[in-house]
């Protein structure tokens, strides 16, 4: 089984194309079902965000599946294949796994270390599980990628610090006030910037938003637009200042509205309650000297942008550690993935031994028929255990083989020595515990001759049943 990734991302495709290739427009589930129906892949997961559209697949035949996936992407979105092809990248095997791990870690994001991507990767996997197109290989791969994302988040500073001005303001407010619930925000100025920031604060749990503007009507309109905000007249600003914890100033005034003296007067009755002032107006609305007042934290737009830049630089410096984690997890996944290369051989070997055992028992059936039923059952049990014991070490050895080349050599030798017949359709039975109810190709179940053959009397024992 091969691992394959075909996709476009912000690194390879312009936004116009990414928009047209967005799987979410028509639904990821539909895409997965459409792809499964094409039959070129055995498992599939579609990861679709505004910055990338990627199809992860497990398939038997790499070349064919690769070409078919590109066709699928262009067919599904009704975009000319010639238009898509130059922007598509494809990776296979552990390179595809590494790519997914880097995506989940936020290393491949437009804004490095961006936190939402891990959730999107999880959603992509859930969607595929729902329509049952994720099988043992992709389940394992995606769970490994969740582990990478989680480790990178907790063990490195890659996701630390906010990299957007709005979030930087909220993060600062949290560092000063702890919980934002029950806090009051005052917005001075009814412009677009103030409105956006206030709405952002409200979405982060702030309960009361008051808006003052020189024109009361403007303030009222903006308050209504935000929803749940109240407007106050310009003359009441000092009172509103005294009652609020966070002040956002965004007026078009040419001279500072809030002078140091004015804020000092407001602060006195507040005693020790901190006041966080975010001055996003240019030219500034708040006298810079006001930041000297004890318990006044004054940040203007440049300060916020500086913290954002510092955060970005810090994130970049953490990339090496995140890459190291990706490498470690890739090693683990690689060991598992390589061990799967031996599975067809293991299955064939077991099948061969089981066939010999059954045919021998059948051949001796006339001699055994004189025995009482429980003695016959014991004979069956003993032979079965014998085969199990004989195959135990070879199975373990095969599964722990290092690289594909060695696996190939061993498979070749075993095939010749025992005259094995490989059966692709049975591959998944080795991974029974993690197998999804159905594979990407529901029709695969009919291709299992073993189940039919097993009905040979009197030795009709399932090979999976444990010893009594």
């Amino acid at each position, binding site marked *: 089984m091969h691992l394959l990734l075909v996709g476009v991302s912000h690194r390879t495709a312009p936004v116009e194309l990414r928009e047209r290739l967005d799987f979410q427009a028509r639904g990821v589930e539909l895409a997965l079902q459409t792809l499964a129906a094409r039959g070129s892949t055995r498992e599939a997961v579609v990861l679709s965000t505004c910055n990338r559209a990627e199809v992860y697949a497990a398939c038997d035949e790499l070349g064919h599946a690769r070409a078919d996936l590109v066709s699928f992407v262009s067919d599904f979105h009704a975009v000319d294949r010639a238009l898509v092809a130059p922007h598509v990248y494809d990776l296979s095997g552990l390179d595809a796994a590494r790519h997914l791990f880097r995506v989940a870690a936020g290393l491949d994001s437009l804004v490095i270390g961006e936190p939402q991507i891990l959730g999107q990767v999880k959603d992509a996997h859930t969607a595929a599980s729902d329509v049952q197109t994720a099988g043992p290989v992709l389940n394992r791969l995606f769970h490994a990628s969740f582990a990478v994302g989680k480790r990178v988040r*907790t*063990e490195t500073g890659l996701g630390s610090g906010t990299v957007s001005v709005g979030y930087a303001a909220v993060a*600062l407010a949290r*560092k*000063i*006030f702890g919980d934002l619930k029950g806090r009051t925000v005052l917005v001075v100025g009814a412009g677009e910037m103030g409105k956006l920031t206030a709405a952002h604060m409200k979405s982060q749990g702030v309960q009361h938003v008051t808006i003052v503007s020189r024109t009361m009507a403007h303030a009222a309109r903006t308050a209504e637009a935000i929803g749940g905000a109240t407007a106050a007249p310009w003359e009441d600003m000092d009172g509103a200042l005294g009652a609020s914890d966070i002040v956002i100033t965004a007026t078009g005034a040419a001279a500072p509205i809030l002078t140091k003296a004015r804020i000092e007067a407001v602060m006195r009755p507040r005693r*020790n309650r*901190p006041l966080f002032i975010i001055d996003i107006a240019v030219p500034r609305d708040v006298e810079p000297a006001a930041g000297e007042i*004890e*318990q006044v934290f004054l940040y203007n737009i440049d300060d916020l942008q500086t913290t954002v830049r510092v955060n970005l630089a810090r994130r970049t410096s953490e990339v090496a550690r995140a890459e190291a984690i990706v490498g470690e997890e890739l090693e683990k996944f690689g060991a598992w993935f390589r061990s799967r290369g031996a599975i067809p051989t293991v299955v064939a070997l077991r099948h061969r031994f089981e066939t010999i055992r059954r045919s021998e028992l059948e051949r001796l059936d006339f001699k055994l028929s004189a025995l009482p039923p429980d003695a016959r059952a014991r004979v069956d049990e003993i032979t079965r255990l014998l085969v199990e014991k004989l195959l135990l070490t070879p199975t373990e050895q095969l599964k722990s083989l290092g690289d594909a080349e060695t696996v190939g050599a061993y498979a070749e030798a075993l095939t010749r020595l025992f005259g094995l017949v490989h059966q692709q359709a049975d591959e998944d039975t080795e991974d029974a515990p993690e197998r999804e109810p159905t594979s990407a190709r529901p029709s695969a179940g009919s291709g299992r001759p073993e189940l039919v053959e097993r009905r040979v009397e009197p030795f009709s024992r399932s090979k999976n049943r444990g010893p009594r």
Partner: protein
Amino acid sequence: MNFVPLALYAVALVAYAWHFARRHAAAGRSATTCLVAAVLAHAFVIGMQTMEVGQVPVAGATSAISTFVWLLALAYLFTEMTTDERAMGVFILPLLVALQAIPALTPSAEIRSAVLQGPLFGVHVLSLLFAYASFGLACVIGITYVLLFKEIKAKHLGFFYARLPSLQILDRMNQRAIVIGWAFLTIGMIVGGVWAAQARGYAAGDPRVQAMSLQDPKIFVALVCWAVYSFELFAARRIGWGGRRAAYLSAVGFAIVLLNFVPISYFLTKSHNF
């Protein structure tokens, strides 16, 4: 015997520092595990000394320090578990290690003087030790508050910004520790006064009992301490002296506590040198 907890505290310090610098979740867990182990070992040592002398070893200055370290470690662990905040450990552990070095390097449990008897004596010592532990915690919280405050004020969001809880939480934790410490300090001092009055009855000839007055440096400095913390509580409630000023006051207060606890106990006091 006090070496074992000292070594464990030192290991915990290294683990907390590692956790603080690199923010490894595993380092944080092992730091807490080390500290719990240190506290258990320390409890065992104190228990053994209790068996040896027949009562809790708090009478002499050295064993009182050991018990204080144990209480402070317990108080810190309680805060860590209730707030799920490990950042403070790296500040509190150096204090634990430094103080625990004293009992580890001096001979173990002194024999309790015959003068020191009655239930009131135990209440006096234990409530004061607990008060000091709270003040120690408040001091450390205050220091971290100032570090974070300075970073935010200077618009230089860096090391502490990424690691410490919010100013609001630090301020509240500091206030709570001060209130608890102040309450126990008050109780301990009143009980001490009552006990001294009783002792004058049955051991009037003892020079130490005679020295128990405001002129004794230990008693005087303890009163200064009480005044500092009372002022801090009053200032926070009446004139809005919270935040940074409260943090500075808790640091000053605890410096006085330490002064009283170590050098004055060993070299200056005439009333408390048991």
